[in-house]
C-alpha cells in the first residue's frame, strides 16, 4: 500500500505541486489568519495612533455599549428572521430547479435556460435596487400602477413601504437572484449519480416522479446536507449591500440588520473596536450554530462537514 510511505516521500515526489500551494496558503495566512489577531481590539479602547499594543484594555465595555443600544436587538432579530426566511424559501428552490434542468433533454434549451437563470447572480445590488424600486414602488411602480389602473386593487400593495411585506419582497428578490447560481452544485451532484440506478428504476416500472423521488434525491442527499449545514452556519451573517440598498426609511425597524448596524455605529465614526465586538459576537454565535447543525446531521446518518 502506497499510503504507508512516509509523508516526506510525498513531499519530495510532488514538490512542484506543493510549491504551487504556497501562494494560496500564503494568501490564507495573510488575509484570513493574520487579521484574526485583530479581534483583540474588541476588548480595547482602540486608538488608531497607538495601535493594538498601545491601546488600553476595557474588558467587555464595547460589547456592553453596543448591546445596550436601542437598535441592537432589532438588528439581531431582523438578521435572524431575514436569514431564516431566506433559508426556508430559498433553500429548496435550487434543488427543484436543478432537478427540472436535469430533465430537459434538448441541450440547447438546457444551456439557454441555465444561462438565463445564472444571469441575476452577476447583477450588482445597486442595479437590482433600482429595478426593484421601479417595479415595486407605490403608485408609479410597474406592478402597482398596472394593478391600480386595471382596477384589480384599490390601494397600493405595500411591497416596499410596510415592514412585513418589505421582508417578503426582500426574501423573494434574494431567492430570484441566487436560485440559478445555487443549482450548479446540485447539477454536478446529479451528474455523479450512477445511470444504472435510473435504468434499474425504469425497468422496475418507476415513472419520472418516482425516479426523482427514489433515485435523484437520495443521490444528492449528502450534498443537500452539507449545503444546509453551511447555510445554517451563515445565519448570523448577512451581506451589507442587499439590506442597505433594498431598505428604506419607512421600514427602518424591519430592514436594519447587523451589517448595516455595524456600519452605522462602528465604521462611519471610526469606532472599529465596537464594530469588531459585533463581528466577534456574530462569529461565535455562527460557530455554535454550525456545530449544532453538523451534530444534528451526523445524528441523522449523514457525513457532516467534519
Amino acid at each position, binding site marked *: 500500500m502506497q499510503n504507508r510511505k512516509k509523508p516526506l516521500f510525498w513531499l519530495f515526489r510532488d514538490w512542484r505541486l506543493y510549491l504551487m500551494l504556497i501562494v494560496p496558503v500564503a494568501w490564507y495566512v495573510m488575509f484570513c489568519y493574520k487579521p484574526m489577531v485583530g479581534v483583540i481590539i474588541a476588548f480595547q479602547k482602540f486608538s488608531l495612533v497607538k495601535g493594538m499594543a498601545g491601546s488600553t484594555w476595557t474588558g467587555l465595555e464595547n460589547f456592553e455599549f453596543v448591546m445596550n443600544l436601542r437598535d441592537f436587538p432589532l438588528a439581531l432579530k431582523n438578521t435572524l428572521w431575514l436569514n431564516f426566511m431566506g433559508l426556508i424559501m430559498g433553500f429548496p428552490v435550487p434543488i427543484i430547479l436543478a432537478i427540472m434542468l436535469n430533465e430537459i433533454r434538448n441541450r440547447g434549451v438546457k444551456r439557454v435556460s441555465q444561462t438565463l437563470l445564472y444571469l441575476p447572480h452577476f447583477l450588482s445590488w445597486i442595479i437590482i435596487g433600482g429595478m426593484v424600486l421601479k417595479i415595486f414602488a407605490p403608485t408609479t411602480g410597474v406592478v402597482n400602477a398596472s394593478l391600480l389602473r386595471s382596477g384589480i386593487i384599490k390601494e397600493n400593495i405595500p411591497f416596499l413601504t410596510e415592514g412585513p411585506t418589505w421582508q417578503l419582497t426582500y426574501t423573494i428578490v434574494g431567492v430570484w437572484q441566487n436560485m440559478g447560481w445555487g443549482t450548479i452544485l446540485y447539477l454536478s451532484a446529479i451528474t455523479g449519480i450512477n445511470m444504472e440506478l435510473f435504468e434499474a428504476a425504469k425497468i422496475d416500472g418507476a415513472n419520472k416522479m418516482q425516479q426523482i423521488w427514489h433515485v435523484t434525491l437520495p443521490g444528492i442527499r449528502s450534498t443537500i446536507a452539507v449545503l444546509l449545514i453551511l447555510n445554517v452556519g451563515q445565519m448570523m451573517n448577512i451581506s451589507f449591500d442587499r439590506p442597505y440598498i433594498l431598505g428604506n*426609511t419607512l421600514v427602518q425597524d424591519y430592514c436594519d440588520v447587523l451589517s448595516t448596524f455595524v456600519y452605522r455605529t462602528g465604521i462611519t465614526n*471610526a469606532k472599529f473596536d465596537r464594530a469588531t465586538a459585533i463581528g466577534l459576537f456574530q462569529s461565535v454565535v455562527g460557530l455554535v450554530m454550525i456545530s449544532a447543525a453538523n451534530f444534528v446531521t451526523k445524528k441523522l446518518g449523514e457525513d457532516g462537514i467534519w
Partner: protein
Amino acid sequence: MKKIMTLVLALVLAFSCMCLPSFAEVEYDLTLRVEVFDRSIAGLNLEDCWQLHYAQEHFGDPNGIKLQFVPVSRWEEGDILTTQISGETAADICITYNGDLVNALIADGGVYALDDLVDEYGANIVAFLGENLLSYGAFDPDGDGVKAQYTIPARRISVVNQGAFVRSDWLKALDMEEPKTIDELEEYLYAAKDAELGGEMTIPFSYAIFTSNPMFAMRYYISAFVNFDEITEEDWIAYKDNPEMLPGAKEAFELFNKWYHDGVLYENFAVDTDSTIGDTYMTQGYFGYFLQQYDQPWRTDKNYQAEMAKNVEGAEWIPVNAWANIYNGKTYHDNYDAAGLTIFVPGWVSEETAAAAIKYLDWMCVPENMFAMQNGVDGINYHGLDENGLPLNAVPTDQVPDEHKMHVGDVVFISNGYNFGDDAKNAAYVARSFPGYEAQVAQSVLYSNTDAWTQISFTVPIQEATDYSATVITKQNELIAQTISCDPADFDAVWDEYIQAILDAGADKVIEAYRQAYLDGNYRGTFPAAN
C-alpha cells in the same frame, strides 16, 4: 513535461506576488507628501498635473522640497485616511471632512501641534484665514484649559446653504405672485395640483428626505413654526441636532402630513431616498417646488433647469422665500460656518517636514500663488481678465488639454471656493460661473442670506455626538417618514412614539452634552432670534 509546466506555473505565481522596490530620487532635502481629493476627472492625473508642476517649480525647487500629491478618492476619503493613519502611510498634509476622526486623533496624540510653526512660517495663512477662523483649529484635548493649534480649517468663500425653488411658468399660468408666506405657498401648491400643471403626474411639493442629514431640510421648515420668544439660546444650542424637539416643530410635520394625504407632497419621498425616480420627475417637469443647495437648479454637473426646459417648453425654476416664521415673519436660513474641511499634519512626521508643510500652505495663501493655482494659465484655462482682474471665459475642464487639466478645490484645499481677495469680487465670480442664470443665482443667494444664522459648532469634542449621532439620525429619518405618511388620526401617537425612539437612541445624552457645552461656553454660531 508536466512537471516542468507545474514548476513554471508555480514560479510565475510566486513572482507575480512580489513587487520590486523602486528607487527614490535623492536630489531634494526632503519629500513633502500632500493629500488631495480625487474625483476621477477624465484626463486629470493628480500625481502628474499642471498644479503640481507649478507648485514644484515655484515652491518646491526654491526650498529644496520635493512635492508629491497623494490622491484619495473624495467619496471614501474618511475610510481611506483612517486606513492610512493606522498604517502610518498617510500624507504629511492630510485633509478630511470627518471631524469625528480628527477629534479622535487629537485625543490620541496623533496630530502635530502647529502653534510655533504657524507663528514662524504662517503669516500668509493667518492673513488669509483670519485669527477668528484659525481659532476653529485650536483644541484643548486634555482639558487643562490650554489650547493648541492642532488643525487648520479651510476657509469657505461662500457660506450660503439651502435655497427653495418654485416654477415661474406655473405661477404665470395660475396668475399668481411669487409666494411670500406659507399660506401663499400652500395656495400655489393646491392650485397647481387642481390645474394639473405638470400633467396627470403633477406633484406640487417635492420633499426629499436627505437620509444622511435629514434635518438639512426639516430644520429649515421647523424654524418657520418655532416661537423664538419662547425658547432660549440654551435650548437652541442643546437641540442643535434635534430641532424636532423644539416647541412648534410638530406643526411643520402636521402640515406635511396634510399635504401628503391631499396628494400635494411627493408620495415616494421615503422610498426614493437617492432620488432615482425623483430626478426623472424633476426633468419631466412634474414638480412645482423643491428645496436643495441654493444653486442646485443651475449647477453645470446636474442642471435641473436645462434638463427640464428640454422636455417642457418654458419651464423655469426661480428662487422663492416663502417659509416666513408664523410669529414674526422672518425667513430663517442657516449658513455654514466659515470653516470648511480640516487640514492637519500627522503627529509622527519630523519637525522639518511639519515646517515644510506649513511653508507650503503659507505659499498657497499668497494671493498671486492662489490665483495661479486656482485659475491656471491665460490662453489655456481662461481667456483674458476683466477690469477687476477676474478671469474671463473660463474653459470647461473637459476642453482643456490633459496636461493643463486641474481641479481647483481638490488641490487648493485651503480655500473652499474661488478667492480673489474680497467678498464682492468672489460673489461676482460665483454668479459668473452659472452662465445664463446669473440673475437667478444672485436672487437665490440674496434669499438664502435673509435672516441667516450661522450653524452651531463646538470647541470641544462631544463624545456623545460621536457615539450616538448615527443611530439618532436613522430615527429622525423614521420620524419624518412615518409622521408625514401616517393616517392623520394616528398622527399624535406616531409622533410621540418616534420622538421617544429618538431620545432612546441616544439623543437624550447628546442634548445634555450640548447643553453642558453651552453652559461652559464651548460653542460657536448664532441664535436666530438674536439677529
